[in-house]
């Protein structure tokens, strides 16, 4: 099989490429510069130099491929909206159009679970849950990912062989803050400050587990047109997760949980200032209110239809991330 991979040098993409090469597939990887893809080239991948902002420049390289894995996206938190439009919205449509035009038999679009409307506290999110009702307040990245997901779904609805994979919050050894669940939680010496209550669901997915799901979405028979939300464990709560972290040598021993509501007054003020200055196209207050709603992510579809299960259970994945060694 010949695969084309965008976002091939990224956190998730490089693992997908490695699995495909291990399977014996021919792999074409999209990279912005040679240096970034040097290791992959050495491992046998064909490097295509290009950028998602200009799909036309590398469209020829889609010819002859069987599966297109579209993992790349502009993920920066700054920049003009038009840059996100080109790299995340227009590129997704062009990859689908051009790919199908030259006979690619399946396109795997990697989306995100950050795209959903969370209407109330305690809801369970499924593949069919609405997109966020106010994407404009979510910032350029999330908004453009919602738009790209909509494009992929439109293609599916007209019978195109597109599969959508929406991983949860990715973590793994080489992430910047591998185990603290993103940029919000802060470590101060032996203390870890966690935003949200202990009972919050933790929609985490170990990056190696996510790579398995992405690869499967490209090869398992009969899943064209399907959507898979991927988290390691639907019922994992923050409390359980951080209790395991506490036990790890060198990690904070004390956890302080700060409910989202505590930050609301201050963030509302910031929001008003943003609004008055018309400085940014997103709303911190809306973001915070949304993150204050606890949502559980169902995994029955990815488990039952794609036949996926985490190669490492979350406890093992936490250890692997902390030590760099997979048992």
């Amino acid at each position, binding site marked *: 099989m010949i695969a084309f991979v965008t976002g091939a040098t990224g956190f998730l993409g490089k693992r997908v490429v490695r699995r495909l090469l291990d399977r014996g597939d021919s792999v074409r990887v999209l990279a912005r510069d040679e240096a970034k893809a040097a290791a992959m080239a050495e491992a046998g991948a064909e490097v295509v130099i290009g950028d998602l902002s200009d799909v036309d420049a590398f469209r020829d390289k889609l010819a002859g491929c069987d599966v297109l894995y579209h993992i790349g996206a502009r993920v920066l938190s700054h920049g003009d909206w038009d840059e996100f439009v080109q790299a995340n919205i*227009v590129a997704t449509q062009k990859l689908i159009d051009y790919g199908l035009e030259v006979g690619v038999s399946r396109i795997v679009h990697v989306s995100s679970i950050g795209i959903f409307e969370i209407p109330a506290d305690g809801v369970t999110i499924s593949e069919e849950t*609405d997109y966020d009702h106010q994407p404009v307040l979510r910032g350029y990245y999330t908004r453009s990912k919602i*738009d790209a997901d909509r*494009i992929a*779904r439109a293609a599916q609805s007209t019978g195109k062989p597109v599969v959508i994979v929406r991983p949860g919050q990715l973590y793994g050894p080489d992430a910047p803050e591998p185990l603290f669940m993103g940029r919000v939680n802060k470590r101060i010496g032996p203390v870890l400050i966690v935003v949200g209550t202990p009972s919050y669901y933790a929609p985490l997915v170990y990056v190696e587990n996510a790579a398995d799901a992405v690869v499967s979405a490209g090869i398992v028979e009969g899943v064209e047109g399907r959507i898979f939300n991927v988290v390691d464990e639907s019922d994992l709560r923050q409390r359980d997760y951080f209790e395991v972290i506490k036990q790890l040598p060198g990690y904070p021993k004390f956890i302080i949980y700060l409910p989202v509501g505590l930050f609301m007054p201050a963030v509302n003020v910031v929001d008003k200032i943003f609004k008055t200055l018309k400085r940014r196209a997103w709303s911190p207050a809306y973001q915070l209110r949304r993150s204050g709603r606890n949502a559980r992510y169902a995994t029955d579809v990815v488990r039952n239809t794609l036949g996926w299960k985490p190669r490492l259970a979350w406890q093992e994945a936490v250890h692997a991330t902390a030590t760099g060694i997979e048992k």
Partner: protein
Amino acid sequence: MVMSEARPDTLKVGVVGGGTIAETHVPYIRAAGGEIVAVSDLSVVASNDLADRFAIQKIHRSVEDLIEVERPDVIHVLTPPHTHAAVAIAALERGVHVLVEKPMALDPDEVDRMAAAAKAGGAMLTVDHNRLFDPVMLEARRLVESGEIGDLVAIESYQAGTASERAWLSTLQGGGLGDLVPHPLYLQLAFLGGVQSIQSMAMDRQGRGTPDELRVLMQGDDRSGVLTISTHAVPHLNTLKLCGSKMTVEVNLNNMSLVRRRDYDVPKIIGKPLPNIDESYQLMTQVVANTVNFVRGKIRYYPGMKTLIQRFYDAIRDGGEPPVSIEQGGEVVRVTSAIWDSLAQAGADPRADRVEAAR
């Protein structure tokens, strides 16, 4: 998860065309009990943009995809005018009701084909002649229909505005000026009846090879009409004057006011100031009423569009007549073509392409 529990009388609505006017349609569609199932546009940037702003869940890239996948009850055709006929026909043939933006079509031929498709598909077609349903216009129509105005003798519609510069304007007869014609013309024709004859005059004050001023004199059954379109006059008035044998009514569509001018059987000395006092009083009371209604959120921009959409959906649900019939819409297209054709025959061809060819 769906956005709201579907009521049994909820209509599934598809929006075709994600441009500026769609932002006005969407809230009125929902207010009228329509559930927007998807927006389609050739540009996924445009469709997504509308979807993002109004929490629309799905997009499509063609009206055919939208209809096949979503099975809407009705679609709103909000694409550029030269695409109206093809898009509307695609829907009507499949039995989907259609509300098309103005102008309904480019020429009477297209209207005929749209009418045939509506008949074949058993679907209703209406045109967004929204100004006819502005509160001031509903009152004007009531005054005429009830006979309060007496015999209607003359109609004057006046529209001044800036010719916009959209790419598709070159497909319209009269270009940017032509884009200003539909609103005042359908207001005019709603009162004029069948048009017997037309005399037109166009000017090209700027010397750009396209007309920028238009005057039309029309004869109806037993009344006459004057249509004035100006791209130079200031302010950008949008008015309609209805002259009857008992009173004359002046409607200001921009300012949402309606003034009745009557004859007063009073001594001359009072007869001079009294009409002015009466007119001032009428305007002042309407300013107060409009302000109160606006602040209370009861009126918004393009208020007639809300009523037109509501009446169209009611007609779909109850099997009644559409707010604007195919015949009414077609008559506006027919007269528009006649205006430009008469100018062309007079030698002052207003169509840019022909002017260019003649040089």
